[in-house]
């Protein structure tokens, strides 16, 4: 009954267009065509290398000859290697120096940029994002010059206040903070814009109600703003955790991992296997790093997830 009426209606409609079956076919087929170029690139340059790396991580291979299967050998080698743990430790210290500072400064600046009482908000927004746009290599090199112990302008300014020269990049206690400062300088503007996008979705009537109830601005920040931008904060913290643990180009250009390996980050330690052509160990290190980053990300997602 329904089948015959459907057939009937199709017969009628066939004349003007090429028919509903054709249009349905086109509609079904279209998404495949749309994702095909992406899929080709994705399969060739992401999925295939990923599977290759996984296999490589169980072998001992130096880029030539046949790979020797070593099972979990690379993994146990790394897990018992003090260098691996100290690279993770260095990244963890950098994380502590970077993420909490960025969240506090970023949130404060974003709240101010979202407030109608502040003038020149457009100017600040532009000024803050400038570091994010600058090429990292150029900035990293400028950092080398600016923080030079003998000739850099930073020590010049500090000297004006009677503070003796600091070995920003040449002592192991200052190298990490100097690197953290570079990362903060480069990405905090972006963090501010991300947080601003979260703030802009908060209903302003909430603040009006709170003001009427006599809540101070600090109180409003703690009780309304922070809980409501939780998801944005979570997004930011996860993003920066990924970035900090993968950090590579900054120490590569600025400190080469020194002094005394104090800035050999997890990302740089991984890269060092590649430069030594120790490819199996490098691959295993990659997966250990991915697992650590995944666990950390899930931890932050859980911690910051809204209770409801």
């Amino acid at each position, binding site marked *: 009954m329904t089948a015959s009426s459907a057939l009937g209606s199709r017969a009628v409609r066939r004349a003007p267009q090429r028919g509903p079956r054709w249009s349905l076919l086109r509609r079904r087929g279209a998404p495949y065509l749309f994702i095909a170029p992406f899929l080709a690139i994705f399969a060739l340059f992401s999925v295939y290398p990923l599977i290759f*790396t996984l296999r490589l991580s169980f072998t001992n291979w130096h*880029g030539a000859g046949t790979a020797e299967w070593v099972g979990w050998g690379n993994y146990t080698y790394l897990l018992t290697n003090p260098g691996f743990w100290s690279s993770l430790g260095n990244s963890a210290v950098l994380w502590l120096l970077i993420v909490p500072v960025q969240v506090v400064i970023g949130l404060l600046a974003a709240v101010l940029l979202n407030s109608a009482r502040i003038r020149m908000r457009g100017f600040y927004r532009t000024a803050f*994002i400038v570091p994010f746009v600058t090429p990292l290599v*150029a900035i990293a090199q*400028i950092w080398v010059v600016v923080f030079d112990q003998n000739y850099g302008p930073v020590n010049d300014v500090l000297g004006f206040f009677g503070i003796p020269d600091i070995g920003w990049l040449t002592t192991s206690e200052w190298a990490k903070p100097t690197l953290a400062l570079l990362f903060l300088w480069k990405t905090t503007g972006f963090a501010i*814009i991300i947080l601003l996008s979260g703030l802009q979705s*908060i209903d302003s009537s909430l603040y009006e109600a709170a003001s009427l109830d006599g809540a101070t601005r600090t109180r409003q920040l703690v009780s309304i703003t922070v809980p409501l931008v939780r998801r944005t904060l979570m997004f930011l913290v996860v993003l920066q955790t*990924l970035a900090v643990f993968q950090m590579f180009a900054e120490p590569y250009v600025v400190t080469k991992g020194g002094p005394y390996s104090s800035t050999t980050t997890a990302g740089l330690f991984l890269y060092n296997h590649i430069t030594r052509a120790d490819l199996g160990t490098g691959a295993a290190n990659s997966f250990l790093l991915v697992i650590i980053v995944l666990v950390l990300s899930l931890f932050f997602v859980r911690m910051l997830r809204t209770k409801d």
Partner: protein
Amino acid sequence: MTTAITRRRRPVASQLFLILLTLVFLSPVVWAIVSSFKPAADIIRDPLGFDPSLFNFDNFERMFGDVPLGSGFMNTAIVLVLKGSLTLFFAPLAGYAFAKYDFPFKNILFGTVLVTLMLPTIVLIIPLLLEMKEFGWVNTYQALVLPGSIDAFAIFWMRQVIAAVPDELLDAARVDGCGEFGIYWRVVVPVIRPGIAGLAVLTVMNIYNDFVWPVVVTTNDRMQTLQVVLSTLAQNITGNTIGADYATVTGELLAASSIALIPLLVIFILLQKHFINGILAGSIKG
């Protein structure tokens, strides 16, 4: 009375905080650009000195004589155009398919895309490099352009943006006899233009600033991109391979860095509204 005072005082503290932040964010860039015009010896002797009458182009001239910055610029421009077009044309298209169509394995596929977002780029470097060697692509433009184009982040972002386009708009176009690509091109693209503009700025920035992949896949200095050429200058400063003194190398370094900064700063200042609005439109809310 007290509330009136605190209300009036607080914006002053806030303005001070913002001005301080602006100074911190802008001073290294301004210092580097200004210093690059100073005589090399003065950069070191008096880093904060400012005497426009001494400004000259010596650092730039010496730098261009020492490193192939011109060919670096050229290579970056070629990669930028090719890789940028690929990403900007195909990423929104794929994002559209993920946002507005149902097809088998869609969710598994999109899940895979999200997982690759979490992978450190360095993870794929070894096998990618071997793949390039297999293809004979080391030191070629294909190697600089294809891997990393139409990237997972662009797909993810465009899916988010396109999901917000109402389905009624698409159905109306379909009723009017619009083909599937026609719907995308004539209906979806005009609506999501701010998002695409944001993606464009971010893509240009990422390609221009990309360092890790180009440094691995180009060994011939005629194929090196701007950032790789720049990083070799830094090695000059530590290894001093060109046999110059510290002041000269520093001057060259600042000249090269300033030249590398300027194109992106100009693009950004011209397009900053699109970029910031693009991030504001595309990121996760609340």
